[in-house]
Every structure is written in C-alpha cells, then in structure tokens.
C-alpha cells in the first residue's frame, strides 16, 4: 500500500516551547487514521503541519509523495479546523459557494457539491440563514461541509464531532466510513475514545510525542486490555517509566 501522508522525524517548537517531538507517522491510502490525545498534546499543531499551514522546525512532511507545503496539494486536501473559521455575515450557502470557488469547481459541479455537503450535515434548510444566527453545532457542521466541498482525496478533520449531537455524530461517522470505501484517506483527531475504536489505525499523542500506535485491536492485544482508554493510560504510564529510567 502506498502511504498518503508521511511524517519523518518531525519536530515543532514555538519559540523555546517544544510542542512536537520527533514524530514519525505513516498513513496508508484508504484508511481512517485517528490521532488521539488529550487537549494540549499537539494534535492541532500536527495537523496544521500536514496541511502546510505551518512549517516543522525540523523533519519532513510529505503528502501524496509531495513535499508540504504545496499549493496544488491543497486541491486534494479537505481541512476542517478545530476552531470554526466562517464568515458570520454571510449565509451558509454563501460560505460554501465562496470556498467552492477557491477550489475552482465548475458552476454546475459547485451547485451539486453544495447540495450534497449541506444535505450530509443536515443544513439544507438553514442554508439561507446568516452564519451569525447558527448554533455552535451548526457551525461545526458547516465547517465539515466546507471541508468536503471539493470532493478531496484526503480529509483532515480536527475534532469534527465536538458539539454535535449523538444522532448527527453517528451519521457523520457513517459518511466518513462511506468516504473511506470510496478510497479516500481520512485523518481525524479526537479525544473521544469510542471514536478511536472506529479508526483503522491509531496514534496516541501525549506531550507532543507518539506514545503508541497501531490498529485498535493490535493496541488492545498488545497491552492485553479491552478498552482503548486503559491502553492510553497504560501507554502513557510506560512512557513516563521509560523517561524515569533514561
């Protein structure tokens, strides 16, 4: 299998603060790859490096065998930021249309994609409302729709289901699985363990390091436990022990 996303010895620091430390990740095509870790562990920073919105202090980031950052590459990436970045004075429809035209979609395709993406996140009936009148959950959903608007090969979703009710969360996950079946690669960050279960591969992040990775089943059997939550705690504990020894 070819790897879609590859990070080689990536470190990132802001000033003196070391946020990511020697990260190595390989995401295969057609996978749902989960980055799981507590808040402040460096997930968002990592994701931004992959999109090319920031540059690593050292190491390499490659997407589709191309060095990041690269403008053409961004045409194949759908990104959903953790913090909603929407134009509040525009309607949902206008937000979608604006981003669609940044990806140079043909007018008819654009209409189709807007209808599809809006329907997927159950916003169709709210499209003509201004975003400033949306609830927090509706904004999250619109952000997700924008990430999907240009039918990207790779989806990078930073905590996509925060603030979304369980029913819609379920349908969003169903869609993520369906996109996977279309051969898309999906990288998703989360701090919810039951979402981690749905990933093909997991990387557990803590304090800017990957403390453990593998498929959920492999991780559980490695530590001989049934819940990922405990795996996470155990892996973190081991890392602390290692640190103490070294």
């Amino acid at each position: 299998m070819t790897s879609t996303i590859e990070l080689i010895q990536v470190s990132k620091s802001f000033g003196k603060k070391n946020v990511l430390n020697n990260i190595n990740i390989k995401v295969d095509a057609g996978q749902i790859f989960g980055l799981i870790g507590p808040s402040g562990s460096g997930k968002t920073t990592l994701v931004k490096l992959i999109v090319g919105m920031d540059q690593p202090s050292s190491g390499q980031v490659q997407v589709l065998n191309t060095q990041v950052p690269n403008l053409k590459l961004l045409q194949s990436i759908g990104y959903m930021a953790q913090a909603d970045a929407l134009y509040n004075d525009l309607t949902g429809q206008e937000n979608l249309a604006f981003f669609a035209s940044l990806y140079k979609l043909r007018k008819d395709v654009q209409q189709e994609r807007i209808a599809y993406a809006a329907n997927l996140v159950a916003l169709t009936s709210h499209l003509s409302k201004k975003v400033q009148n949306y609830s927090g959950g509706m904004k999250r959903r619109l952000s997700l729709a924008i990430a999907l608007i240009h039918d990207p090969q790779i989806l990078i979703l930073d905590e996509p289901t925060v603030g979304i009710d369980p029913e819609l969360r379920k349908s969003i996950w169903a869609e993520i699985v369906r996109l996977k079946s279309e051969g898309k690669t999906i990288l998703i960050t989360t701090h919810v363990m039951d979402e981690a279960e749905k990933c093909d591969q997991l990387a557990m992040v803590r304090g800017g390091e990957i403390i453990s990775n593998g498929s959920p089943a492999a991780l559980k059997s490695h530590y001989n436990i049934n819940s990922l939550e405990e795996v996470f705690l155990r892996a973190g504990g081991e890392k602390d022990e290692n640190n103490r020894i070294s």
Partner: protein
Amino acid sequence: MRTIALVKRVCIQMVRDKRTLALMMVAPLVILTLLHFLISSDPNTPRLGVNGAEESLIDELKEKELKVIPFDQLKSPNQLIKEEDLDGVLKMEGDQLNLTLTNDDPSKAKLLQTKVMQAISTVNAKEQATNLAQFAEDIGQQLPNTPINLIQLTMPEISTSYVYGNSETTFFDQLSPILVGFFVFFFVFLISGIGLLRERTTGTLDRLMATPIQRKDIVFGYLIGYGLFAIIQTIIVVFYATKVLDIMLVGSLWNVILINLALALVALLLGILLSAFANSEFQMMQFIPIAIVPQVFFAGILPFEGMPEWMQIVAKFMPMYYGGNALVDVMYKGFGINDIKNELFVLLGFALVFIVLNIVALKKYRKI
C-alpha cells in the same frame, strides 16, 4: 478566478454592513459640509467703538465695512469693549489716536487694524489734497499773472489681479482640495484595514491558507474588492465637493478623480499592510495618529518651503504630500495632467511597493 471569488465576497460583506458603508460614503460629505460652512462663512463685521474722532474719519471707517459705534462718555476702552462686545476702540486724545484691539481672534484683530490704518491714511491724503488745492488758489490770487501749473496730485489707482484664485477666494478654496484627498485617504485606509483585520482575528485568513489560494490572490482580491468601493466613494466625494459645495475647481474634474483614485489605492494597500501589525480594531485605530494624521501636515496645508530640511525629507515619504500638492495644482491652480503626472507616478510607486510588502507580510500565514 480565486481573486474574483474574494472580490465577490468582499462586496457582499460590504453591502451588508450598512454602517461601514455609510461611514465610507456619507461621513466624508458631512465633514466637508461642516468645514465648508465653518471656514468660508463671512466673518461678521468687526465692531469698532469710536470716541472723539472727526466726522470725515468716521465716514471713511464706515466705507470700510466696519460697524462704527460712536461713544461720548469717556470710559476706559477695556471697559467699553467688555460692555458693548466690541472688537476694538479708537480714541482721539488731542492729536493722538489710540487704537485698542480686543484680539480674542487675532486674524479679526489684524483685519480691523489694517482697515483703521487705511481709513486714517485716506483721510490724511484727502486733507493734504485739499490743503494743496487751497495753497494753489491762494498763490494764484496773490500772483494773478503767473500761470500756475501745479501738478494735480491724484491717488494712484491700484488694480489687483490674481495668478490663482480671485478676490473672492477663501482659505477653504485652498484647503478643500487637500481635505477631499485626505478624507478619501483616511476612510479607505480605515475600512480596508479593518476588513482584513477581521479576516485575521476570526481565523478565516488562517483557514484560507488551507485552500489553494495564493497570497497574491488575497492581496489583489482585497485590492479590487475594496477598490470598487473606494472608486464609488471618490466619485461621490469629488462630485459633492465640486458640484454641491461648489468648491473651486479650475482644472479638470477627471484629473481630480484620477488623483483621488491613486490616493485611495495607496490608502487601501497601506490599510491592509498595517492591519498585519494590529491584533484588534482598537490597535488599528492606534495607527491613525501615527500613520495618517501627520500626512495632513505635509499635504500642503503648511507651507513646504518653511519646513526645516529634515522635515522636507520626511514629507517626501508621505503619499498625501504628493496627493495634496497635485490636488491643489489641479483644483486651485488649474494645472493639467502633464503638470501632475510626476505626483501620480510617485503614488503608483507607493502602491506597487505596498502590494509587494503585503504579499510578503502574508508569509506569516503560509510560506508559499
């Protein structure tokens, strides 16, 4: 294509934002109107109290468009001024004329003083002329056979002509071209700067960097989007100033619009450039006293030749210096496009430099 998407978005946002739109389109007109009536309104006639002066002098003073109020009682001038709300008191004591000026408004005091002086010298000249005529007559009677050929002294007539403007020209006529340019500059700066600032603070600029948009697309998108509104604003302000307020416009209206458009372009680019160094709307406001207000001083309101040399060098770095001069040249002096093309080129040069700086400044968000 991406630029067009951005232009469209900026336009929708701008049209929805009625307050900002009003600030851009109406506020300059309101300020110009206020200034127009404040500065060019006729100064009310100075009131001069007179005590003990001759009838001829009083007549002459009245000729000079002064309100002359004779007083008989011998109060002190200061008291008289306070009680009667006068601008000055002229008092004759023996052969001595004493003029007391209120001087609460120095320009009015100067005017009053000049008029009193003129009146006195006119009266003196007339008296001398009469004396001379009398003298000639006396001589003629005493020496009846001698032809008297006294050259009749006549007051030389002075006719004044003006290279620029005319006798009706007010301070506002000279100031208004600069004000028109400055208001265009100021409001375009403020609105475009805050526009991009909002994009930064809401995180959408960061979000744009996850799309294949290029940095130059963003700069040009903003340039064209806000530029459209700047063009509309410029045309409204210029037409209002020249057609409604009837500000003196000797040269071509199109040249005036051209200069203002160049100024708006520079202001727009300066606005979005400086917004890179602000984190909030208030911080954007802080640039006004630093980057905008000083421009007025160098725009031609204060005489350039009188400035110290280093100030003259500073002036050369101010876009308003070129814009203000070009506007005075066209509107007041009636110069043509050839006389202002250098100023226009310098303004375009500023714009070009700012475009490049803007594209570089966005590197903060994405390296490519």
